[in-house]
């Protein structure tokens, strides 16, 4: 039997999402309209993919700061390499994302450096690469059909892009719940040395997590550039910030080993609903940036504390101890 407090605490992201959506629906006339829900889900599609990947590296106890720059690089590669042939471009971009994820993981595993340090390096290298690719310009494509294909509304509020993101969340939830890989990830994030002693191949788990986060960010960048039919070196900025906030709000602990994709999904929704509602209320990008920063600061300060509190609540119901 779960006490009401526990179910409230574990379902906090869901409760907050509903509350926030209700609050904006009451205050804003057009908030709950089909078009605006579609717009929210479009932002969700972008941020959701990035956050899903990032949250999986956080789950194994590491961090990937390079996701924001990866979005820009992937978008630029798609249009630069592909031109009008976006499939070739997308394949090239995803291959590059795979490479970046492997480089992150290999440097991390071989040199035993903090993943924050490794990925701060790749973050900077990738943004330099993005500026070099863009050459100070905004890259365009004349192929608008692909964007239309991905963005045409389905049942009014969905698009192929947002459905793909939701599918990715479902897949990841399945992997974590039903496969050995998923359990190994949680074990690695909970206590890497203990997991290794128990025979978990933590090197391969780290490789998987870094590659996954790089691929998710790459895919988000590819889809964004296809959808906008343009790409620039700055299009990934602020996404890292939002992704970290969304992951922590969604219940992923910075220390690793705690959290699940369903929570992250609602974490992303909370952030996209908040930003959408604020801009409908007339807040400028400066105010939204500021709010996101304050929000991240609050959740990161609370991160350790709520994690510890939840731990006391459910220490008996989870495999993870202390």
């Amino acid at each position, binding site marked *: 039997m779960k006490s009401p407090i526990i179910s409230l605490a574990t379902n906090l992201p869901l409760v907050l999402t509903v509350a926030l959506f209700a609050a904006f629906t009451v205050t804003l006339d057009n908030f709950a309209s089909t078009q605006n829900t579609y717009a929210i889900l479009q932002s969700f599609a972008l941020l959701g993919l990035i956050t899903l990947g990032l949250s999986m590296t956080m789950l194994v106890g590491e*961090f990937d*700061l390079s996701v924001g720059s990866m979005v820009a690089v992937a978008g630029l590669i798609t249009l630069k390499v592909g031109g009008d042939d976006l499939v070739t471009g997308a394949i090239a971009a995803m291959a590059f994302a795979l490479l970046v994820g492997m480089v992150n993981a290999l*440097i991390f595993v071989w*040199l*035993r*450096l*903090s993943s*924050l*340090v490794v990925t*701060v*390096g790749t973050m*900077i*290298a990738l943004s*330099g*690469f993005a*500026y*070099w690719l863009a*050459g100070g310009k905004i890259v365009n494509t004349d192929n608008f059909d692909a964007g239309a294909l991905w963005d045409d509304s389905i049942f009014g509020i969905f698009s192929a892009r947002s459905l793909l993101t939701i599918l990715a969340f479902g897949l990841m939830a399945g992997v974590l719940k039903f496969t050995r890989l998923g359990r190994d990830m949680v074990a690695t994030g909970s206590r890497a040395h203990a997991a290794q002693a128990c025979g978990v191949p933590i090197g391969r788990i780290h490789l998987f997590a870094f590659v996954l986060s790089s691929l998710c960010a790459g895919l988000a960048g590819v889809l964004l550039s296809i959808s906008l039919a343009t790409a620039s070196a700055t299009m990934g900025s*602020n996404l*890292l*910030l939002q992704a*970290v906030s969304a992951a922590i709000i969604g219940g992923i602990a*910075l220390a690793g080993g705690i959290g699940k994709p369903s929570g992250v999904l609602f974490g992303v929704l909370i952030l996209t609903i908040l930003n959408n509602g604020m801009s409908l209320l007339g807040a*400028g*990008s*400066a*105010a*939204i*940036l*500021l*709010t*996101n*920063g*304050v929000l*991240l*600061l609050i959740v*990161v*300060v609370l*991160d*350790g504390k709520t994690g510890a509190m939840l731990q006391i609540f459910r220490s008996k119901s989870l495999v993870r101890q202390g």
Partner: protein
Amino acid sequence: MRQARETSHLASSTPSRTKTMTSAVGDFVRDSVQADRIQVNGIKVVSILLIIWGHLSVDNFLTPANLNAIMYSVSAIGIAAVGMAFITLSGNLFMLSMAATAALSTIVFASTLHFGLPVALLSVSVLGIAIGSIQGVVVGTARVNPIIATIAVASIVMGVGSYVSGGMTVAGKGDASWLGIGKFASLVPNQLVIFLAFSLAANYWVERTRFGRELRLIGLNPVTAAYSGIRVPRTLVIAFVIAGFSAALAGGLFASQAGQGNLKLAAGLDFDAIAAVLVAGISIRGGQGKIIDAVYGAIFLALIGNLLLVHGLSFEIQLMVKGAVVVLAVILAALIARGRVH
């Protein structure tokens, strides 16, 4: 293990006075190639080689005009690198809000310049100290991950900056030429004098005072430091205040040079400061390295940047070469550290 290393480091920096000349030279050589000094000493040697190569390969490399250009390019970045070194030394990796702090302070500098240069400098100092102390409290007392906390603060600061400036350039109505283009004894830029004075003072403070030893011990092992009665939160707040102040001062230097405030003026400062700290071999594990090393790192990177520039290479190529140099330095440092552990 870590403490033992630290003791040997402290001992080696204060050689006995009774040593003979030859053994002093021997000590000097031995100290120079010691695992925790070899990287920065390598940087010094390579910097000298770069200057010689520059002189031989480029006609006007050692002219006053080009030397001035190098001095201007190193000053603001060097100040920020010194501030970053405090954070790295304290075991808190990096401060990713330096570019944002410097950007906001270019706006503040330009908008307060009509009260005079001292007031403008005072305003940016107060701004930097305030932003730094917020992060110091968050990281030092709430023990929040420093990278995430400083990213959050960076976006708050940028949000405030674009709200205040409306994304526009703020023209400075006043005279900042003393700082912007002024020269000490009509030889070296005042900016360089400020940079060197700040660095030497900071280095002395960390190497020779109680605060410095506390900072180093916290960087080496925060738990031991706390149990030894070290005032951990207080020391970390001071480190973040210094870093915030140095970022703001760097912003002031940028603004005085450009004669205006703009959020884009300080772009890339985080990277440049981190790069200087990393190539100089200040350990990202904390506690190892000297503040002055960051100065050598900044000078080394400025020399590379200048050489690439005078050889006519594009900005993007410069960025990628610098990135490659930093990656090599990090891998080298990790390999040296690994060799030391085994």
